[in-house]
């Protein structure tokens, strides 16, 4: 099927982040159309029709999410989640740095659609350059009268503010993000109440990923039906994939959903480096269960196929591991990440992630015991589903899949006290 340039259509143009370049390709005309020709409900309807699902990882239908916002007079907020913290994910960065006005236009249309006058972009602390680009772009657009009070002369006010995070992975979780945005500790909140009814400052709030919001202008321009014609029957549209690891051409590629997995790895990303064999692949960011080489045979890159294969599409962050990779070490590295990034609020996640690391450290150091594997697998029951937010379950993704699919490698570490791959 090959690449499909929708979101990435502009990024390779020179000075693509500038307003005039963006306007030359019809930029902000979609916002004009939305503000002058469409009612907010019509936009929500188009987005529902398009079948667009949240591109941050959870894949919740965007139009349905917007529909939860109560039709009251209280202030409402739109928050763009640009925290992009999932290891392996770097797709939003391309849009932010190379086509910021596309994102701003998407935010402005979406804010109008849900009745919000204020929108925030919560960008991860490490994206310092991205934050600068966005701030410059907002300034440009405000000076041109596109954003700000009376946007494009429509009488509708849209204020967009960039807020830089402070570096916590958990702040990509939407309620922790809201707490962080309010100036509190980035701890996830108990749900219900859901952000759509009580979010930022206890007002209705919609939180969407960068990629999701950047898709909205195209839906407004060409209609929900057109967007729904892309992709498969259930997974509609295009998706950005950030492929990394042992491939020849790692990077961000835009594909129609339903593209064969092997096409991404072997054609688009240029195959495994040095002609080695594929060992395992993590399809949707570090929290999604890994798949063995033979398991991606015939699997398509869409929500349903990956679920059927025992994993998830997630944020589309494909991490490719070739035959030289020590899975034990890979699992250990990811466990360390989650133990470091757990917010520490709820018991299973806080203690479970720390214990995992302690056990895996011993196994990696050659001091593992066979019963350790049972304890690690037992985490699925005592930790899985018992945590306050999805981080605890995310930590289980690589651990459980790693041990069940590569148990022999773990056992070899324990029995010989060293890595069979010499790592």
């Amino acid at each position: 099927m090959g690449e499909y340039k929708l979101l990435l259509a502009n990024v390779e143009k020179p000075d693509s982040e500038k307003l005039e370049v963006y306007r030359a390709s019809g930029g902000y005309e979609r916002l004009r159309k939305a503000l002058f020709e469409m009612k907010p409900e019509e936009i929500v309807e188009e987005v529902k029709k398009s079948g667009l699902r949240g591109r941050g990882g959870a894949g919740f239908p965007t139009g349905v999410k917007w529909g939860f916002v109560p039709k009251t007079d209280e202030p409402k907020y739109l928050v763009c989640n640009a925290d992009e913290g999932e290891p392996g994910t770097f797709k939003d960065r391309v849009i932010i740095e190379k086509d910021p006005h596309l994102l701003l236009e998407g935010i402005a249309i979406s804010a109008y659609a849900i009745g919000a006058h204020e929108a925030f972009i919560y960008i991860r602390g490490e994206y310092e350059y991205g934050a600068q680009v966005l701030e410059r772009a907002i300034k440009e657009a405000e000076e041109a009268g596109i954003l700000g009070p009376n946007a494009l002369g429509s009488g509708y006010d849209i204020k967009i503010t960039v807020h830089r995070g402070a570096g916590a992975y958990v702040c990509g979780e939407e309620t922790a993000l809201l707490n962080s945005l309010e100036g509190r500790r980035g701890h996830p909140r108990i749900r219900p109440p859901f952000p759509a009814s009580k979010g930022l400052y206890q007002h209705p709030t919609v939180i969407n990923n960068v990629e999701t919001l950047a898709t909205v202008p195209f839906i407004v321009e060409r209609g929900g039906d057109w967007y729904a014609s892309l992709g498969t029957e259930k997974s509609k549209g295009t998706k950005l994939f950030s492929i990394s690891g042992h491939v020849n051409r790692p990077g961000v590629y835009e594909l129609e959903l339903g593209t064969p997995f092997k096409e991404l790895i072997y054609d688009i990303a240029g195959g495994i480096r040095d002609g080695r064999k594929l060992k395992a692949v993590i399809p949707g960011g570090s929290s999604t269960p890994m798949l063995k080489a033979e398991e991606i045979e015939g699997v398509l890159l869409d929500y349903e196929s990956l679920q059927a294969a025992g994993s998830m599409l997630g944020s589309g962050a494909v991490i490719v591991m070739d035959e030289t990779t020590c899975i034990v070490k890979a699992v250990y590295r990811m466990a360390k990440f989650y133990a470091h990034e757990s917010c520490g609020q709820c018991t299973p996640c806080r203690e479970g992630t720390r214990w995992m690391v302690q056990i895996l450290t011993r196994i990696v150091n050659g001091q593992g015991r066979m019963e350790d594997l049972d304890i690690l697998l037992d985490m699925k029951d005592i930790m899985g589903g018992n945590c306050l937010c999805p981080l605890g379950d995310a930590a289980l993704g690589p651990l459980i899949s790693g041990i069940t699919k590569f148990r022999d490698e773990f056992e070899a570490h324990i029995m010989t006290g060293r890595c069979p791959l010499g790592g």
Partner: protein
Amino acid sequence: MSTVKVTIDGITVEVSPDATILQAAAKAGVDIPYFCYHPFLKPAGLCRMCLVEVEGMPKLAPACVTQVRDGMVVKTNTERVKKAREGIIEFQLLHHPLDCPICDQAGECYLQDITFRYGKATSRFADEKELYPTKFYGPLIVHEQSRCILCKRCVRFSTEVAGGTEWNVYWRAAHSIIGAYDTDTVANYFTANLVEICPVGAITSRLYRYKTRIWKLDFTRSVCDHCEIGCSLDLGVRENQLFKIKHNIMDPTPWLCDKGYYAFDYVNHAERILFPLKRNEKKMVSVSSEDVSDQIAKALEGYKEGEVALIVSPHIVLEDAAAVKSFADALKAKVDYRVYGEDYLPLKTGVSDISDVEGSKNILILCGDVAVSHPVLALSVLKAKFSGANVAVISANDTYLGERSNVFALVPASKEEAIAKDLLEGRLNDALKQALSESELETLRSMLQSEDLMVILGVRASSALRSLAYKISSDKGWKLLALDRGSNPKGLFAMGLYSDGVGGILKGVVDGKVKALLVFGVDLFETYPDAALVKEALSSVEFLVVGDLFFHETAAYADYFLPLVSFAEDSGTVVNLFWSKRRRRRAMEPKGESTSLRKWLASIADRLGVNVTTEVEGLDLSSVEVKLTEGKVEQVDGKFVAVVEPPFYRSAKYAGWCSNFSEASAEPKVVLSIEDAKALGVKEGDKVVVENSRGRFEFRVKLREGQPASSVVLDCGYDRFPVNLLLTGSWKVAVDLKKA
């Protein structure tokens, strides 16, 4: 109200639709274990101990935050729930030091109890435990991070109830620690609650550290002796020593202040006088209880009508008060309890419960720090504020509620009364306008226009202000709460234990009209705002009997000293702030030959051939009439006007004999405005001399932004530091300051 039906482990109960599964389970009698849930804090769902299976929900649901639905079927006895519980306990114990044998919480520890009931007997943990050093946060609390299960109850109390921010979680993940970030001393009036709500031994009391085990204590439910709120306390006694206070009941609020929790060890203090003493030249010598009554009775026989007077502490129980009243009547003696030099009497108003405060929409607090005089009341005010009420505080000193309120005016000490008077009459004084921003003034105006306004008068408010507030609030339909000092002033007033004030009695002594004085339960040098007058009166009185726990400065002038019992050793009735009777119960035997005031008086009266009564059943509080008095308010003017106030940790009864408690406030300070400090050439932490014609004292400087110029606040209540010497009957005085 409609209800919904919920089935828990086969038991169907009807509960309100906004109940949680945990509340429904309590009604069904099904035990669901929890750590982080607390009935008076917002549920947080952190510990995951209360996970239960709900039919139709794919995941286990935390019972403390999951709302019930009609027809919901909950199971707590399934294999899945059992496994989850065992998992959570295993997680909690992974890095727990398991030092129960030396932990003060052992015996009342949630982690211990829940592990015994729901946990597994063995551990699969084979790695090294991560432990933290012990942290002493000042003289009141100890924090053991290693034992902490991070349920955040303490943090939630500090932020949701006490309105503070310093006590919080720091760092992240498994390395999260609880504590105060930039201070080594945590003494914020309500630290007791951190200890009480900690489900494990992470926060414990320093006073109780390594003293005894909880199961060795016998608990008696009594009433606190420190202020007229009268919180219910459980007194834990072992071998006739009072070791621990607990507050197990929501009476009147779920919370407790540090005075009630920490200021009790005077009961066991080694310096307590346990035998009667009589003067022999310059020495005091021991005398038997029989002889002392004989001798005092004989001495009193020689005095005529009006020559004897009694001064009693405002903390004595009604039974003692009845005895004092009948004794005084028989001797035709004057009696008074207003040992702080108050010129006012308690006012009976319509506020009948602390929930009236919590339900107010507007609260105006004048002349005094509610959190020092009536600490728990401040939490109720905050509760009202957190549910949307406007709270305004107008005070000459910085108060606990000040920064936590919507409107806070720090006003000059000399103008405090006038500002309060103007405000009640609907005028905003210029000095008040200076202290507030336009929006704050707007809030204040709207509060004064509201019908739902509660005025709380602090203990500094004069009788004139009280009378005015009483009249205006009855006209406008406002609620009024007038605070008094002591723990039973309303009862003593109802008993008629007042005459022309303690000042009047002391002046009578100096004038030679009163020749014999009996002082019970109070060190006048500490309480009366004119130490020179006290000294003059006590040196010139012919015959002085002092009864108390300790041999304090007033006792040093006595001819006879009678050992009294503390609140823990005596039963009795007190009348609380809301004019209802509360019962104190005896938790331990009287020490030595100490006995209650009524018994001493009965024994003396017996020898005088008169009868004393201890009958209080007949006291009808509903028929108490309001007695408005209007003393003269003396205008204090000078280069500097000082208001003298005890800091919280010196304001408890017998604070000087409560070592940990009083240590929390180590040194007397003077609060200065920044302009004044510049003019004097001093900075924070320097020493200044505060003097007037009557004395001079050195204070440590504390600067306060917003403090009006020429107005200072002096600390009092320190041992061997009689600031009262500067005063002339009022707690405000003109002084001069210079650099030390």
